């Protein structure tokens, strides 16, 4: 039985969704995911959902509320608390022809399933010479909020490092729905990373069915003085910082949302840096060996002669996340840190 809190959340979101005359309406990130899952489960009876508490409970982030009632317990499966086991089962099912969408409650718990993700799902197709593949979609969530050291991490860099995986981290409902559908239909293993703090963000999504290819970054805001690069919640933070930088400092930022972390498209970034001559990367993960390091390396490779300042990186402080809220606020980069980094780049 879904919780009262979850009921209210969902009701609120339904009220917020309105369709405009172009067939575009604003829905939440969560609703976008729900629509994608619903459409794909309807279209293909081999699509199944698996995960901890996704069925009877409706999902710890309420994404799959009502799904078990609708599709039954054979297609919406509550797994035991065993990430390694359930990822192995999902991978095996995918090899056998099922299209599983596995939910790993948070990306922190994916550590327990690393071997199945990295050594199996990612490599099946290669090691079997293409005779088999493992089109498993693993949905998981980054995020934080007084959840403590072991529940507040974000490992996109670790997975984006692995050949054989596709890794996406959409920041908008439009991208979330389009990517999830493509991920389910595609033949590659996909790590689909959501963020617990953006499920309620609203954005335009067409009512007509659509998919988006799992590639490419997007310019979210055009500018001339510096290029801000981020993804997921970081992209939203960067856009907010860009607003303030324009109003308070007269600095014009170009903001790029990476969207897809593997394969990483830095062409758009490089083109932008050739225009602005400065780049700052914003990420919620720790700075050291984060994706920012890879992007910075590619910028200096491909746009070396266009850089007027070193590429800046803003990330979390290099500590396990504290529990206390005030300490947590110090660790995670906020608007101020982004603004500081931009001012530094323009120094």
């Amino acid at each position, binding site marked *: 039985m879904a919780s009262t809190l979850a009921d209210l959340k969902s009701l609120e979101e339904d009220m917020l969704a309105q369709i405009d005359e172009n067939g575009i309406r604003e829905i939440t990130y969560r609703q976008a995911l729900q629509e994608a899952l619903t459409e794909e489960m309807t279209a293909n009876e081999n699509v199944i959902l698996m995960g901890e508490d996704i069925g009877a409970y409706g999902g710890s982030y309420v994404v799959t509320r009502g799904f078990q009632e609708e599709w039954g317990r054979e297609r919406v499966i509550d797994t035991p608390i065993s990430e390694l086991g359930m990822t192995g089962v999902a991978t095996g099912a995918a090899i056998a022809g099922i299209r599983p969408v596995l939910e790993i409650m948070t990306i922190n718990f994916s550590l327990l399933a690393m071997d199945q993700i990295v050594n199996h799902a990612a490599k099946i197709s290669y090691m079997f010479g293409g005779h088999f593949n493992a089109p498993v979609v693993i949905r998981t969530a980054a995020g934080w909020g007084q959840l403590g050291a072991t529940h507040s991490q974000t490992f996109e860099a670790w997975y984006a490092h692995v050949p054989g995986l596709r890794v996406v981290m959409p920041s908008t409902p439009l991208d979330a729905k389009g990517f999830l559908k493509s991920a389910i239909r595609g033949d590659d293993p996909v790590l689909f990373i959501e963020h617990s703090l953006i499920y309620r963000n609203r954005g335009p999504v067409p009512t007509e069915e659509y998919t988006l290819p799992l590639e490419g970054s997007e310019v979210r805001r055009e500018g001339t003085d510096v290029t801000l690069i981020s993804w997921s919640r970081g992209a939203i933070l960067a856009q907010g910082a860009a607003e303030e930088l324009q109003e308070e400092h007269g600095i014009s930022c170009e903001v790029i949302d990476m969207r897809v972390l593997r394969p990483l498209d830095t062409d758009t970034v490089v083109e932008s840096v050739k225009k602005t*001559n400065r780049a700052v990367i914003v990420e919620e993960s720790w700075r050291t060996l984060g994706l920012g390091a890879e992007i910075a390396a590619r910028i200096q490779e491909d746009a*070396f*002669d266009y*850089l007027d*300042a070193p590429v800046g990186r803003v990330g979390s402080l290099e500590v396990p996340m504290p529990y206390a809220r005030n300490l947590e606020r110090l660790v995670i980069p906020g608007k101020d840190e982004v603004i500081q980094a931009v001012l530094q780049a323009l*120094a």
Partner: protein
Amino acid sequence: MAKNVVMPQMGYDMDAGTLLRWLKSPGDTLERGEPMAEIEPDKVNIEIEAFDSGVLAKTLIEEGETVPVGEVIAIIGEPGEEIDDVPAPANGAEQAEAAEQPAEPPAEAPAQQAVQERETEPAPAPEPERETPQPATAEAPSGDRVRASPLVRRLAREHSIDLSQITGSGPHGRIVKRDIQPYIDGEIEIPIAAPEEPVEAPAEEERVVREAPAPVARPAAERGEVEVQELSRMRQTIARRMQQSFRDAPHIFITMSIDMGKAMELRKQINAEIAADDPESEVTVNDLIIKAAAVALRQFPVLNSYYVDDKRELHDNIDVNFAVAIEDGLISPFIPDADRKTLGEIARASKDLARRAREGGLRPEEYAGGTFTISNLGMFGVDNFTAVINPPQVAILAVGAAKMRPVWNAETEDFEPRFMMEVTLAADHRATDGAEAARYLQHLKAMLENPMRMLAG
């Protein structure tokens, strides 16, 4: 254990370098990578850095001296190490010129005689360096001295701007785009400001000249205020090159008068056809002379050659430099393959090069080259003049103004007004002689007096 520091090869065609100044003194400690000397392979300066750490034990050459690439110029030793003798040069065979003095412990007396025997020209002209990147900026390879962003370095290369003259406003004194932008926009002249420390090099150079010259006689009683001007870097370069040229190349000067009547007529016709629609293609008198001189050179490859190391280097290509006066100096960009270009092409190229020369926007590969130079002072009404050859070229043509003059007509046995221009060819008597120079001028005269020949040729 002692290690030799040699004059490095810092350009494709460089075979000698001039030491401008030591940045460290004997006895100083050196950190690997630390700049230790400033050398000049061309119009711009480069620092060489210590390839190893230690103590700068001895410097073997003086500021202002030019030595061939590969010659040992300093020794790095251990702290406290004794170094008595000049170590054998790395390429000893090449430096086998008999030194007039035995090599003394170099800290006191540089082995200047030994190196003076060789061609001391730091190979400026044949420096197109098509393979190596242009060192148009005065930075050490590690960029230790001049901090500048990669963007700024690229812009400096593209616009031939000397970064050592720009102050950086970025972190750590880094030169960033906003610092260099005014130079690119042309608001400020190419930085050629006097260096901060008084440059001793010119004075030093006097000493290393083969015949030690007498000090300049000064009047016993000087009157009035004296303003001592430091020479800009460009001025220094011009001074150095002109002195070397005049000293090393015995100049002969041959003058010829040329009737420009038909050439001017041709010019008028051409411009009437093409210049109305396209002002960039307007052909000037100088453009005509460039074309004629270039075509005439086809028959005189020696005058199109370089004199280097007692040898003449002949060229297939005829690339004509023309002098452009710029603030406190001059620069001579060249038009490649001038003999094969149409007058329109020459006109456009010369306008573009002259404009960019004045704006400071020439790239080194546009002026560090060329096989024959033309200098024109006709616009000042000058009748004729003598020019100094641009080494290692062998000749230079000095062009005066075309003026109406009475010329004897043998047929009518009377004087008649003709539009005459005097040109004076200066030629290096080591490479050529009067007769050849005179024959060239005859050719040139024939071409300009019957200009159709230069179009047909």
